[in-house]
């Protein structure tokens, strides 16, 4: 039924696009407005070889591929788009429910000064996303778009209202719950621009309400069919100072995500949820300081109470830890704990000026970062009259440590040809909770010291050799966590079109002698304007791959891979 609906609506969209295109060409000459068809696509495929040593399984299909293509059509105030996705079958490390192919996204939109109306798949965010955020991240196959209607209105300068309703994408269909949301934002300075011209302090206020509806069909429980969540935010900016704070609450929302198992029986939690996110910074040329804090208590918010993993999330809970890009510091990344955590981050960045002793001819960039996340400290209240498990938390007490990261990075250019980045990070990670969501799991906590040296030698104006050396020292007696690593990488870009790279990740600290393995990986690529093709061959270790704060686990693999991206 749903599939049918998807297809027919899609055909209509397409016909509309093609039709409009037809009389488009005629209108072109008389109008100067945007009138275009554009898009982008990406194709990834991998050939898998079994490798029992690194734990790469047999893949019956031998070759797996993920592909998608987006086409957007714009004509003046009108735009429309579709996305086609194909998984034959989905690559290792992604949710196997991405199976087959089809149109997964289509929309039609009209925008003018007063109104902005979209029907179809919608990406939207209220405030910092604590209550509502739908987005698409192809690298992670994350897509929780809202299939429905959205209206944005700006009735007066500085005032923005948003309203939306729909169901969320879940693989090739939509989830069972209806999501409704409303958001208002008031930029006070924009409203009173003539009066407030000389006022240096800028204030923006916002408030949102989001509610979901899902029929309750479980006769064993009294489940709320409607769950509401609401909150407010404030942003104050003056000169280099920026202060942002958002606080949200959610009504009781018993779900799989906040249920707990006691004595072999599963209990739902009827606890209310709340979350707070504060970000404040001061920045001036050559110096900045950023302080972020957040507290989350039972804020997993999904449009299906039985959903798990990354499926059907309505909101987004940002992690307040450093986002790493080098391999070793990103080995055990942090992920926000929606059931409960308190955390914060302090970052100082500055530039040692040119001409000083340390700065030399080109100056030097220094980043210092410290972040920490802990559990809450809940006190359980057993309620014997119902099956609900309720608990109390307070703002003063923290629970056990989940994660910390103390980090320093220095970037320096030594000469016109030679520059380098030097980094050190000390990380703690409660692997059981942060990565496996099993508080009593078999993993030991990990404390790691990580060093990175990244050197670039630009031997001609568009030719360079880059080299990375990374080390990570961890407890070497820990079989499950694989112990210590050292990494070497060399990358050659003979011109701006080609690159060649080789990487060796050596697990020298593995407590099992036969598993002290080299994971060697080669890659080559060609880029021309917006088109890029890359090939790679070798062994990849199992790990966690993150983009923009959401992570997925990637199993070990051995084989040949190809990736093509292009936009037009």
């Amino acid at each position, binding site marked *: 039924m749903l599939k049918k609906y998807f297809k027919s609506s899609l055909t209509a969209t397409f016909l509309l696009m093609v039709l409009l295109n037809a009389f488009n060409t005629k209108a072109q000459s008389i109008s100067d407005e945007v009138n275009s*068809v554009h898009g982008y696509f990406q194709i990834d495929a991998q050939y898998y070889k079994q490798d029992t040593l690194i734990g790469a399984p047999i893949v019956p299909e031998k070759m797996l591929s993920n592909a998608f293509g987006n086409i957007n059509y714009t004509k003046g105030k009108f735009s429309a788009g579709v996305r086609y996705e194909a998984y034959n079958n989905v690559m290792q490390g992604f949710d196997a429910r991405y199976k087959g192919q089809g149109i997964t996204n289509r929309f039609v939109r009209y925008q003018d000064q007063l109104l902005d109306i979209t029907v179809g798949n919608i990406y939207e965010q209220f405030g910092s996303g604590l209550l509502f955020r739908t987005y698409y991240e192809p690298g992670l196959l994350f897509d929780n778009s809202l299939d429905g209607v959205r209206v944005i209105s700006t009735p007066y300068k500085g005032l923005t209202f948003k309203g939306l309703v729909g169901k969320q994408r879940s693989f090739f269909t939509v989830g069972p719950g209806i999501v409704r949301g409303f958001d208002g934002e008031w930029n006070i300075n924009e409203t009173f621009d003539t009066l407030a011209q000389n006022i240096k302090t800028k204030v923006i206020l916002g408030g949102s309400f989001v509610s979901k509806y899902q029929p309750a069909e479980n006769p064993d429980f009294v489940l709320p069919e409607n769950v509401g969540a609401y909150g407010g935010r404030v942003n104050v900016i003056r000169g280099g100072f920026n202060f942002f704070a958002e606080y949200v609450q959610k009504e009781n929302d018993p779900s799989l995500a906040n249920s707990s198992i006691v004595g072999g029986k599963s209990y739902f939690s009827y606890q209310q949820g709340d979350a707070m996110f504060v970000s404040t910074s001061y920045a001036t040329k050559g110096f900045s300081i950023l302080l972020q804090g957040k507290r989350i208590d039972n804020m997993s918010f999904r449009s299906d109470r039985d959903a798990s993993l990354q499926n059907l999330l309505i909101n987004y809970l940002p992690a307040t830890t450093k986002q790493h890009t080098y391999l070793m510091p990103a080995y055990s990344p942090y992920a926000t704990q929606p059931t409960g955590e308190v955390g914060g981050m302090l970052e100082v960045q500055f530039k040692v000026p040119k001409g000083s002793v340390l700065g030399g001819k080109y100056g030097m960039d220094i980043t210092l970062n410290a972040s920490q996340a802990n559990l809450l400290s809940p006190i359980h209240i057993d309620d014997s009259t119902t099956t609900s498990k309720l608990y109390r938390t307070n703002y003063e007490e923290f629970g056990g440590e989940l994660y910390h990261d103390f980090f320093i990075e220095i970037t320096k250019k030594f000469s016109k040809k030679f520059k380098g980045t030097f980094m050190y990070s000390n990380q703690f990670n409660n692997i059981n909770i942060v990565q496996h969501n099993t508080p009593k799991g078999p993993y030991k906590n990990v404390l790691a010291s990580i060093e990175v040296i990244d050197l670039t030698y630009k031997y001609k104006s568009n030719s360079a050799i880059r080299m990375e050396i990374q080390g990570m020292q961890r407890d070497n007696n820990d079989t499950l966590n694989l112990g210590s690593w050292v990494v070497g990488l060399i990358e050659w870009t003979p011109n701006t079109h080609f690159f060649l790279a080789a990487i060796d990740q050596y697990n020298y600290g593995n407590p099992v002698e036969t598993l002290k393995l080299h994971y060697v990986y080669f890659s080559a690529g060609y880029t021309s304007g917006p088109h890029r093709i890359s090939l790679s061959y070798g062994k990849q270790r199992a790990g966690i791959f993150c983009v923009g704060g959401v992570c997925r686990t990637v199993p070990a693999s051995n084989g040949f891979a190809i990736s093509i*991206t292009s936009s*037009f």
Partner: protein
Amino acid sequence: MKKIILALLVVTAFAFTSSRGDGDKIPSSIVKKLDGSKINTNTFSNGGKPIIISFWATWCKPCKKELDAIQENYSEWTKETGVKLIAISIDDARSAGKVVTDVKSKGWDYEVYIDENSDFKRAMNVNNVPHTFLIDGTGKIVWSHNSYTEGDEDALYENVKKLAKGEALSH
């Protein structure tokens, strides 16, 4: 049914495989200034001089390398050609607070906007960052490039100079 859709998709794709260099205007999207106010991207202008639009993120190493490399010669570039660089951050709520601190501590002299909901990113068909566009003096998108390797900034500037002189571009 599926085949029809696919066929349509392919046909449409091939019909328009001319790359982003075919001279479209900048599409309309709302992005946020660092002072919190909003601006429509179709109002980007530089008084008849070329514009570079660079999509980046605070967590993207190559993006920051590219913007650092351009910053070194940015004052020369603007003097010689009048070019202006507009840096569009695609950071989400987690890292949007870091945009202003990165920009200031790095000392970048660019016009910086935050595209927190990725509206402009989608409208410009950006898949991965860094992705760089060139806009000519009449506001038309005439060139684009994905990814960054050492020396890309020199190739970019060659194109900026050609644009400033009104010559045709190479990819």
